[in-house]
């Protein structure tokens, strides 16, 4: 039963959708780069705006990099369900008989691979620009690796709610930023603790807990939001 046709089983549907979304993303490579370029531009504005003093930059580096990551994620979030909503594939997914929660999860994972992972991979460069101490670079990368999936997961709920709106993007930032507050606080605290030579593992533990909680709950909320938007 489970191994009949690709797309017939739950895992088959999950990976088929993941593959499709990644393929679609890589066919539109320039669009893929927008959030990354946005991230680079925003980060480069900070030294220009507050002065190039290395100590000052090092002090604010965790906050700046994380806030830029939040902004870049929110910018890319709209693409999560938008095209599928507009061409009607989303409705096909709903009537496909597979749980919408699973479909949402596949799309969220694809979104993170496309929009979140590049931020993690770019973070050494960003840390270099912001003069972040090298000993806290590892922690910075870890917080981004654990934190950016949470951003995609929570963001997916906001996207699901605003998808039926023509100009949902502006509202989306209002909906999701308050929900990102704890992640921002914990992640920057971890990096700052590492810079000051203090223990930081408890913060990473909290982020991991947040990741596990949001993986468990957010796809259900996103699916419920999509169902409301499609009704």
């Amino acid at each position: 039963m489970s191994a009949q046709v690709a797309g017939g089983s739950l895992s088959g549907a999950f990976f088929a959708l993941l593959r499709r979304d990644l393929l679609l993303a890589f066919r539109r490579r320039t669009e893929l780069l927008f959030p990354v370029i946005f991230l680079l531009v925003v980060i480069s504005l900070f030294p220009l705006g507050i002065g190039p003093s290395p100590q000052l930059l090092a002090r604010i580096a965790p906050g700046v990099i994380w806030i830029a990551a939040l902004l870049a994620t929110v910018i890319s979030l709209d693409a999560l369900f938008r095209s599928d909503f507009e061409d009607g594939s989303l409705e096909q997914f709903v009537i496909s008989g597979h749980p919408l929660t699973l479909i949402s999860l596949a799309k969220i994972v694809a979104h993170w691979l496309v929009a979140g992972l590049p931020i993690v991979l770019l973070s050494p460069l960003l840390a270099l620009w912001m003069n972040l101490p090298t000993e806290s670079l590892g922690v910075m990368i870890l917080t981004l690796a654990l934190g950016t999936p949470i951003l995609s997961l929570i963001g997916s709920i906001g996207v699901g709610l605003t998808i039926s709106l023509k100009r949902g993007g502006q509202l989306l930032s209002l909906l999701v930023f308050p929900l990102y507050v704890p992640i921002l606080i914990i992640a920057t605290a971890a990096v700052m603790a590492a810079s000051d030579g203090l223990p930081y593992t408890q913060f990473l533990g909290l982020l991991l807990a947040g990741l596990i909680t949001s993986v468990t709950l957010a796809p259900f909320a996103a699916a419920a939001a999509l169902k409301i938007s499609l009704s």
Partner: protein
Amino acid sequence: MNTKTAKIAKPRKNALVMFIHKMGSPPWFYNFTGKFIPWLWLIFGVLAAWGLYLGLVKGPADYLQGESVRIIYLHVPAAWMSMLIYSTMAVMAFIALVWRIRIVEILAMTSAPIGAAFTIVTLTAGSLWGRPTWGTYWVWDARLTSELVLLFLYLGVIGLYNAIDEPRKAARAACLLSLVGAVNLPIIHYSVKWWNTLHQGSSISLLGGSSIDASILWPMLIVAVAAKFFYAANLLTRARVKLLEQDMRKGWVRDVLKEKN
């Protein structure tokens, strides 16, 4: 089969269940609430006048804070209300999503602007109190910050509700958002609290434990109770208007309007 129908039919005889069923019907809700809304406004007026008179006129000024202590008669009840209304809204949102009762959807959504207003009152009154007491209008104190985030959550719910044209869909989307916010609110609250203590040691506490005097406490409690009546009266008044607006073309509204004219 027979036993099953009997089981369903039986609770309907229960007066409370009957009452809840009736409240789900728009005309019944409209007429029933219309009868006691004036009383709610009256009780609110009397309690607010009494509490504010005790606090603002009769009560003594604080020997440390001077006359500015009187701001807390507005600030503290508003702060309590801002949190109480969010939890009330979340509970109603849950009921609205699970049982899809239209009246509850409307009640949850009309709670949001009232709660946001209380949050703004809290922040403004707090700032005005902070200036003479702490020497600054704003500090990133844990309580202030979580109140600010609460305001953003309210604004998100209101924004989403107003952005979607179809009223029931808008209400259900905004209800879901307020539930997501309710799950996150404790996490936000504790992370902000912890963030502040991390950054600047012990934070300034608005009320130092049991150090509050009865001459301040009693007027404050009276105003707090008055605020609850204000919420109930305001909520029901707004909900009735919303109901009329949504059912504009329905027969019962025409009957109501005929009675009025």
